[in-house]
């Protein structure tokens, strides 16, 4: 398949902002046009090919190699195609994304999928803070799509999210699901403190025990049927979500009463 391959050849000395690295932008552009795309190295306008070797043209399939920790806004607002990154990548990966797929074989910075609407992001390593979150002052974070992080994630996972799904394979830090309004967060490795703080609606599922806020009230144990559906969906993404009664059950908590909210947190209790 026709593909555009970018290889980092010069390490940026300050932040490099590259919202042009997006399938939508590259799709109709020639090799020369892609090379000449404007990126911002700090405050200075530069050509993309000053930092990357560019191979290919006119494609919505992008492959990037190199340590992109200082490279931000890759795949911003993309609506289609694929971006695959071999190496670490910096902040705002797939922010405002509205379709397509991003895969990172490495770690990602803060704001992965910030306020994203549609599409899928898969980070094989760790993610930074505010995965799928709302930007400062916004009332709504992620409104759709899926974010998978195989490793750990920082604070405020899914802050103010309304729809969509976030799966953290490792552990999340504080305030996972902060002010959540809907959607689902799956925490395979549990989380630190204040999970679900101020949540209004939505579901947080944790496969490890959580220290909950005092404003969550226990409301029974059960194996909800919707988990069956989730489990099948997650299986296609390579995530195992237990739901059979022989394996254990979920303890359900509702809150956050401080709001007051109608969110739920389900904590898996394996059968002994």
């Amino acid at each position, binding site marked *: 398949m026709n593909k555009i391959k970018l290889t980092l050849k010069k390490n940026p*000395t*300050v*932040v490099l*902002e590259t*919202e042009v690295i997006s399938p939508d932008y590259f799709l109709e552009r020639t090799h020369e046009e892609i090379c000449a795309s404007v990126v*911002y190295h*700090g*405050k*200075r*306008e530069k050509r993309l090919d000053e930092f990357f070797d560019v191979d290919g043209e006119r494609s919505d399939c992008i492959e990037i190699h190199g340590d992109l920790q*200082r490279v931000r*806004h890759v795949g*911003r607002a993309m609506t289609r195609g694929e971006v695959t990154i071999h190496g670490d990548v910096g*902040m705002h990966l797939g922010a405002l994304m509205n379709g397509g797929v991003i895969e990172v074989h490495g770690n990602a910075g*803060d*704001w992965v999928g910030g306020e994203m609407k549609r599409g899928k992001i898969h980070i094989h390593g760790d993610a930074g*803070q*505010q995965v799928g979150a709302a*930007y*400062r002052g916004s*009332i709504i974070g992620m409104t759709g799509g899926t974010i998978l992080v195989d490793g750990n994630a920082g604070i405020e996972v899914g802050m103010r999210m309304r729809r969509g799904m976030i799966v953290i394979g490792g552990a999340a830090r*504080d*305030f996972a699901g*902060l002010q959540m309004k809907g959607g689902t967060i799956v925490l395979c490795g549990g989380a630190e*403190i*204040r999970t679900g*703080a*101020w949540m209004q609606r939505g579901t947080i599922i944790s496969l490890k025990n959580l220290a909950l*806020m*005092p*404003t969550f*009230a226990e409301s029974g144990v059960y194996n909800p049927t919707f988990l069956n559906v989730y489990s099948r969906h997650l299986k296609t993404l390579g995530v195992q979500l237990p739901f059979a009664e022989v394996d254990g059950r979920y303890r359900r908590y509702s809150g*956050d*009463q*401080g*709001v*007051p909210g109608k969110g739920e947190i389900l904590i898996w209790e394996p059968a002994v």
Partner: protein
Amino acid sequence: MGGKVTCTLGEVKNRADFIVYWGGNPAECHPRHFTKYTLMQKSPFLPRGRKDRTMVLVDIRETKSAKASNIFLQVRPGKDFELITLLRAMIKDQPISEAQVAETGLTIEQLQDFVSRMKAAKYGVFFFGMGLSMTRGKHMNSAALLTLAAEMNAFTKFVAMPMRGHGNVTGADVIMRWQTGYPFGISFNRGYPRYNPGEFSTVDVLVRGDTDCAFIIGADPGATMPQPAIDHLAKVPTIVLDPHVTHTSKLARVHITTAPAGISAPGTAYRMDEIPLPLRPALKSPYPSDEEVVRRIKEALLEKPDWMGERPQMLQNQI
């Protein structure tokens, strides 16, 4: 979403009959606060002064401020956010049990009493200090208290105000807001202001090494910031403007001594409640003011070729 409900200090002086200090030690850190604004003053609305006011201190330890207070609530360290969220639930009559309250280190009776006093107050004020805003949870802890204050207005008048540190921090915040729309954590690299605390805030930029030059005015990050930030300041060309030789000056390439603002340079300072006060210099200084140095640097920069190149005047879609 809450918001911010606040007032000027004169309103506190004239009207506040219920004063809560949260995570601060005014008796030692803002010694004139009690006498000038919060406790001792009499007003037509509070003719008996201290007797007409109730003061509550919420803190993790019994500081000197506890002696000045009518009620001291000793919260368990790191549980402020939980406590405030519980109070948000309780003012809205959500069912809260003794067990739920336990981890805060307080009893449900204490909280019930606190809630009924808050609701009975005619004019309540929260002052919050670094014990709240700089501990785990940081901006969310402040947001929690601001939200509680906003929600209390369904019952009575209630406001909240941060106890800021020294220097003209508020002034910088106020001016950045009118010039850029944002208080701090701003990047101009694209030719217009963008805001993202955590990404563009000074400490984060320095710790990640995202800058290749530093220009420091009226601050001493070399004394207060984490080591990686200090290391980066030493690595890049750092320029310091300060009346004194600071820790930062010692690791900087350039230090320019300037006249101390308010003592020998005029200007405006903004009080913690954003009320502007004129600075009237009493002494003459042989040194130029910060403003003059910055202006001369700017003039010198204009002599250099324009690095920006052709850019549009205006963008409809920001990054």
